[in-house]
């Protein structure tokens, strides 16, 4: 059995935007039969939590060289480019296998 991948979802305050984004990612990936575990955080907390993540999805700018792939997108909030963003996430997670 596959171990679910862990996605760290970052935004400014860790309460509003990342809540919506995390939920939207979970639902979109579930539709594709991919189980993931999401965790929300503030942008400033990313560095300390990155060890526990396979991928980061963020709505805000993050420091570089975090050591895991980072997808920087507003797609899960605005709907613009959502399919592309989902594709990118799926691809990034597959590479992790």
């Amino acid at each position, binding site marked *: 059995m596959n171990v679910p991948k862990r996605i760290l979802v970052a935004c400014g*305050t860790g*309460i*509003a935007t*990342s*809540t*919506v984004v995390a939920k*939207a990612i979970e639902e979109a990936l579930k539709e594709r039969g991919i189980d993931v575990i999401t965790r929300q955080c503030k942008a400033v907390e990313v560095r300390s939590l990155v060890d526990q993540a396979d991928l980061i999805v963020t*709505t805000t*700018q993050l420091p570089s060289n975090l050591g895991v792939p980072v997808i920087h997108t507003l797609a899960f909030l*605005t709907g613009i480019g959502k399919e592309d963003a989902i594709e990118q996430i799926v691809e990034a997670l597959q590479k992790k296998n």
Partner: protein
Amino acid sequence: MTTAIVKLLESNNVLLNINAESAVDVITKLGNELFKTGYVKETFVGAANAREKKMPTGLPLLGGINAAIPHTDIEHVLKPGLAIATLKNDVIFQNMAIPEEKVAVRLVFLLALEQPKAQIEMLQEIAKVLQNPDVINKMINAKNYNEVIKALEGGSY
């Protein structure tokens, strides 16, 4: 349906077709209403403005009418709620994803948030509204509170 938004949205907290000079001006006007109606502490307006400056919330949207969703840390909030403004003229916010980039905004949702999971429904509904140019248009053209509610309830979600 946008039940969670409608439940939390008091008529006092809807400012329609207002003049505002800046993002700070809009956030202050809306925040003062949330304070008067008992949703937030006195510290909220200052905190929301500080946070907007550091981590902006302007969102370019599909239909070309752009929005912003300012909010701040939970310690400044008394109970979950929101305030909405439609703006007579574009007000410049910075882009959430690319803070150097300007977004000309006509619709502002100021969010008073407590624990994340508690407001998930409202937040998801706001995202659905943001993704629906038809609802955004109706909100921008709303002349009173009831028309805003009708626009929010009329989305084919």
